[in-house]
Every structure is written in C-alpha cells, then in structure tokens.
C-alpha cells in the first residue's frame, strides 16, 4: 500500500506510487512518460506502455535557448497520444530530476493533469517490476494547446533582479561548492559553468537532492518543512524563486515547494546560474 496520503503533503494527488501505476497500466486515460538523462535507459527497458520524452530533443527549441512553442508542444503531445484530459504520469532516473523537469514544461502549456511516480525508475526496477523493451504502439491524437504561459511558474532574469531588490525569497539548489563560488560548475558538468562563481544575492542554499530519500522517493512533509521552513525560513505565502545551473535541478525543488509543501507562488528560473553568472552588470554574492 502507498503511504503517500499519510505524508502530510499539501497536494498529495500530484504524486503516485509504483503500486498505483502498476494497477493502471492499461488505463486509456493515463499516459506514462519516462524522462531520463541517460538516453540508453528507456530503450533498454521501460514500464509497459510508457513513452519517452527526451529533455533535449523533445522539450527544447533546437536553435533558441528556450522551450518548445505551442506548435512544438502540440506535435509532441499528439505524438505521445494524449489529450488535455489525459493524466500524464512522469517518472525517470536521478530521483525523478528529469521527470519533474518534463512535468514543469508540460505545466507551462497548462497541462496540469500531470503527476510524478514517487521513487522513479530506480524504485520500479528495484521492486522487481516489469520493464520491457517493446515500444508501445500509440495512436496519435490532435492536441490543441494554449500558447505557452511563462508568467505563472517561470522566472526570467529581469524578474529575478526585481525579486532580489525587494528581498524576495530565493533558493539556490546547486551544490554547496557551486553556491560558495568554489566551483564554477556542477561536478561533471564543466561546459555548463559560468565566468563567475557564487550565487544570486540573498539566495539560501538547499541542494535539490536533500528533498529526496536514498531510494529516490520524496521526503515527507515534516522533513521537508524542517529544511525549507525552519532551516532557511521560507514563508509559503511569499513569492519564491528556485534556480540551479540551467533550471533542471530547480524544477525538482519547484515541484517540492509547490506541490508537497503548498507554496502559493514558486517560479523556476531556468536561465539560472549559466545566465546570471555570465551576465554583465548583475550582482553576485560569494
């Protein structure tokens, strides 16, 4: 049995268990989507019926530093066979880091009927559940999406500047060494660094992975509150911005603050440190 309902989350409906997914593999109103960093994982074995959304080729514009637009999202959604009424269940590697990123992009197009499978791919596999290499045969749909709405859950450079000038809440989810400026990039990601090390003034440091347990599941609400409300003193009623290096790790924190702790207004700054740390005229702290 799942214990998600007993963990005290503000919006427990945004999270489903592996049991829940396993019981609904043939539900036509549900589309299971795997999203990983490692491109070999999905083809090597995935949840039966699951489709893949690749964070590079499916979610990003190939020429601009931006996400796909309305037409691109409609094409993607149609290809994976969903309608605006389909419940989309995301899961993936790295404690669902990439799954929350994909979910966040879907919500930019107001596809809010989307959930995360707690524990992601690792938990499903370690429970000995079926993984198949057989690609599902999907009947394409004709998805009609609204224009992408960046105003609600996405932050941009100038907005972040105004936010810090009014002493707004800011969470830096990178590693402590990146936050302090000791490192200009995340371990293993040297090409995604910046010319300056440090953090956005006023930011509090909480590495994204602190919200996850060893098995990739999310910590319960009390544990999360101890980190975000008590340790760094965030107020759930106040606007909050999360950032990392390019906005993927911070999408995990965005999910936690918004859905598990019930913060009213959280934005993911996807320009993040690769934009802020390289920009002329922007202040930093070390």
């Amino acid at each position, binding site marked *: 049995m799942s214990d998600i309902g007993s963990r005290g989350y503000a919006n427990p409906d945004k999270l489903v268990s592996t049991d829940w997914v396993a019981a609904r593999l043939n539900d036509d109103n549900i589309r299971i989507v795997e999203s990983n960093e490692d491109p*070999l994982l999905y*083809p090597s074995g995935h949840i039966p019926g699951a489709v893949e959304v690749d964070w590079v080729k499916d979610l990003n514009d190939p020429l601009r530093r931006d996400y796909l637009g309305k037409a691109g999202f409609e094409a993607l959604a149609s290809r994976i066979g969903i309608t605006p009424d389909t419940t989309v269940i995301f899961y993936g590697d790295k404690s669902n880091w990439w799954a929350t990123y994909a979910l966040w992009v879907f919500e930019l197009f107001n596809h809010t009927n989307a959930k995360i499978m707690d524990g992601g791919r690792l938990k499903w596999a370690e429970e000995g559940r079926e993984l198949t290499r057989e690609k599902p045969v999907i009947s394409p749909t004709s998805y009609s999406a609204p224009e992408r709405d960046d105003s609600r859950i996405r932050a941009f450079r100038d907005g972040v500047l105004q936010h810090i000038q009014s002493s707004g809440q800011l969470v830096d989810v990178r590693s402590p060494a990146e936050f302090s400026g000791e490192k200009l990039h995340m371990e293993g990601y040297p*090409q995604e660094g910046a010319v300056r090390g440090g953090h956005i003034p006023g930011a509090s440091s909480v590495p994204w992975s602190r919200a996850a347990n060893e098995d990739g599941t999310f910590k319960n609400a009390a544990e999360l509150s101890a980190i975000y409300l008590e340790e760094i003193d965030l107020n759930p009623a106040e606007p909050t911005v999360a950032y990392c290096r390019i906005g993927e790790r911070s999408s995990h924190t965005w999910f936690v603050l918004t859905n598990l702790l019930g913060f009213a207004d959280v934005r993911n700054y996807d320009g993040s440190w690769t934009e802020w740390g390289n920009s002329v005229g922007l202040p930093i702290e070390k």
Partner: protein
Amino acid sequence: MADYPAKLQEYLDDFNFITSREERVDYLIAIADEFQPVPPSIATKPYDEAHRVIGCESEAFVWALERADGTLDFYFDVLNPQGLSAMAMSAILDQACSGAPLEQVAAINGEVVFTFFGRDISMGKGRGLTELINAVVYQAKQRLKSA
C-alpha cells in the same frame, strides 16, 4: 589520426556508419549487455576509492593489471544500476584496450565518446564517460613511464 587499438577502431568505424539515433542506442545497449563487472578475484566491495573514476556520476571504477607481455588487462564496475551508458563504455574499453599495445591505449582521445554516443548527449554524461576513458589512458601512460 592516432593509431588506436584495433578493436576500438573497429567500433569507431561501426559507429561512424550509424546515422539514426535509434540504431546507435540499440547498438550501445547490446554492448552494455556484454558488460562484465570486475571479478571478486580482482576486487571486492567496498572498492578502494583510488580506483573510482572521478567525475562519473554512475560510480564507475577501473582496475589495470599487468600481463606478462607488459600490456594491461582492464577491469571495470559501475555501481549505479542505471548507469547503462557507463556500462557500454566500460565494455568497449575492456574489449578494445585489454592486451592492446600501451602506446595505442595511451593515444586514445576522450572525444571518441561523441562518436559512440552522439553530440546530443548531456554534458554530464559526456563528461563522465570521457573521464572513464581518461582513467584507462592514464593507466597506460603510467605503465609506459615506468617501463
């Protein structure tokens, strides 16, 4: 172009012919299926941290043991069960570099990662896999220095 170990060059030639992402991925998965972790006669967990590949998030480890002819046998393990790309790269390096002339192993350029995995691999994956190659190259260079 550097003179690479024959088996590595064979793999590179194969991958240079691949044009579709799907074909590339299927080939890499087939190679990953051949991955054999280091046998207990060589190393047991917890492994000595000196063998860890720094920068590889899949927690790869590398060992090099000298053969009678002076070449090296390479052994690998990948602790992350989801580290499939690292397993594929390890299997390639094992097959290509174990018993190969040290000069050829020492000449391998980490950029070959992109021939195998393509340019759209994430920065993190690319970096980790390059470091795996670098660990093998380092061992060959060290043996050449001490020879």
